[in-house]
């Protein structure tokens, strides 16, 4: 240790750091290891421990103690698993095949749910059961893609914004201007200009939300910026990417996960909205938004309303589960929150 930190200023800093660390449950040795690892040596988990348990173990424990998080986790897991496995199960129809009556050769339009078509057929004779699962896959894909790209960009910018002082003024000014534009408008306009399609829908939804995420992350980073472990890293000349990965990321991971989980339902609802205003995916690519929109046009006739109810039920289950799960996770990750 002595040979690594020669200068007196650094020494004083280390002492202050150690004093603070000694007050916390983490042992001195752990703190020392962490400190040395700023430049070399094995990577250690940051000492975020509370009374014996590690932070993540405690979070997990609190999370699974709640009945609602177990239920939503179970529902989501089985839904996603089934949606992925459904095409490979025996006796499934293709979601885009138009089914004809074997005797008359006519399309089996608007057939009520029965033994062969479990959820009935739509207005051109496609199997609604298969379409709903195909639509669930599409919508989940959109949700995950938006959650991934939006948060990846948001976190990266948020770290830079909060940590690098020179960038703060620029991004704050940019934010002040862009936050004035309603995100719905941005989403609509970019989809309209790029012409509707999978990629443009995902792009538009990322465009509309990344700055908000970045702002949220930035506020957390500001709180961490001048904590002593960051000061120490700066003094030792730790490269920026290392500070981001080893100092900032572990401390913000819980809110990043929260943002990720909450982005998924909002992106799925966003797809429904875009489809509704006529900027959705083409009809040959089933999505929950497409199915709901087609079903909505038929609600005037009472016997056809099943085509609206079933996709709505699946959509609502997915979005509610993600929302409840996200909030349960937030409570578990931040137990001091009232």
């Amino acid at each position, binding site marked *: 240790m002595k040979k690594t930190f020669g200068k007196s200023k650094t020494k004083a800093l280390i002492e202050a750091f150690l004093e603070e660390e000694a007050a916390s449950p983490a042992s001195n040795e752990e703190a020392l290891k962490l400190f040395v690892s700023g430049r070399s040596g094995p990577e250690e988990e940051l000492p975020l421990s509370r009374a014996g348990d590690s932070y993540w173990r405690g979070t997990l424990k609190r999370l699974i103690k709640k009945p609602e998080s177990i239920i939503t986790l179970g529902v989501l897991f089985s839904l996603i698993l089934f949606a992925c496995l459904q095409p490979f199960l025996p006796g499934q129809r293709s979601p885009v095949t138009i089914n004809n009556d074997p005797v008359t050769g006519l399309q089996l339009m608007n057939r009520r749910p029965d033994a062969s078509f479990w959820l009935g057929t739509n207005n051109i004779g496609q199997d609604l059961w298969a379409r709903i699962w195909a639509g669930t896959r599409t919508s989940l894909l959109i949700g995950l893609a938006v959650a991934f790209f939006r948060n990846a960009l948001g976190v990266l910018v948020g770290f830079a914004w909060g940590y690098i002082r020179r960038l703060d003024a620029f991004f704050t000014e940019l934010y002040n201007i862009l936050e004035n*534009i309603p995100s719905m408008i941005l989403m609509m306009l970019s989809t309209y200009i790029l012409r509707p399609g999978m990629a443009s829908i995902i792009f538009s939804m990322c465009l509309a939300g990344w700055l908000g995420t970045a702002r949220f992350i930035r506020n957390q980073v500001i709180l961490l910026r001048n904590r002593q472990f960051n000061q120490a890293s700066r003094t030792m000349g730790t490269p920026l990417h290392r500070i981001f990965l080893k100092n900032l990321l572990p401390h913000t991971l819980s809110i990043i996960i929260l943002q990720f989980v909450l982005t998924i339902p909002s992106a799925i*609802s966003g797809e429904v909205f875009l489809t509704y205003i006529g900027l959705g995916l083409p009809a040959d690519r089933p999505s929950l938004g497409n199915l709901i929109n087609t079903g909505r046009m038929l609600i005037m006739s009472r016997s056809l309303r099943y085509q609206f109810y079933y996709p709505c039920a699946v959509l609502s289950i997915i979005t509610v589960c993600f929302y409840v799960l996200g909030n349960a996770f937030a409570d578990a990750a931040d137990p001091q929150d009232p």
Partner: protein
Amino acid sequence: MFRAIAYIARRLLRMLLCLMLVTVIVFCLMRLLPIETYFKDFDRATELQIHNRLEELGLNAPLPVQLWRYISELLHGSLGRSDIYREGHPVAKILAEKIPVSAHFGLLALCLSLPFGILLGVFMARRKGGLIDKLGTAYIVFVQAVPAAVYFVFLQLCGSDYLGLSILYRPSVPSSQILPIVSMSIPPAAGFAMWTRRFMLDETNKDYVLQARAKGLSSRSIAVRHILRNALVPLSQQLPGTILMTLSGSIYIESLYSIPGMGGLLIEVIRMQDNTMVQSIVLFYAFIGIVGMFLGDICLALSDPRIRRAPKAVDL
């Protein structure tokens, strides 16, 4: 007083800058559209026809010239002419027909959602963890988690099946306004309730409440006279924007009940690919949003002196 004026002036400048920037961005983005979208049948049009049509629309000029022309027209109060929706009709005139309809529904819905939301929030905060709080939380979770497209349609179906209300809006039947207005007030009421509850709970833990209690004030008068008044300060920031936004109408509700307002118009012109109309409506929405936020900040600064006293808004 001087500081307040300086603050407003600074904020006004930022708003103007923002309006200009948005206009330029939206205009330039719209020019990215392929020219095919300006024609009903592009494949059959001859080269001369294409040239003439583009000339007529002013699209052959270089971009800065087009932009300059557009902005100077905008400053004269002209939004251009519709391409397809009503060919050759001035956009401003079409909007002037639609905005009052949207504002009528939006303001009535606001009159319903604002008192209901704030009352609900107050009751939720006063008995934290009680029955009302739990029911209210369930309501807020429902509104935030379930897509609006779903529950609006269910409300429409329930209202028409069980209450015998008209399934579509008819100007001659006043009762056909009930369903759209009630549906429109559901999401904002949840928002108002959530914020009121949160701000009330934040205020409840402060020292002045403790002191008021020590003085022997009843918990009701503390809640109404002290906590609520302070809790409404942050809410006042959202209010001007919410009121202005009623002009833009609700996209879902207006198309579900076929109300001839702004929201329904937007869907129609997107389906018809009327580029000039889309551009004007998008700009209109953006302008409302920007002006609403400006008024909200002014409102907040007027009701909370701490904000205008700071030379630069302290934000963390």
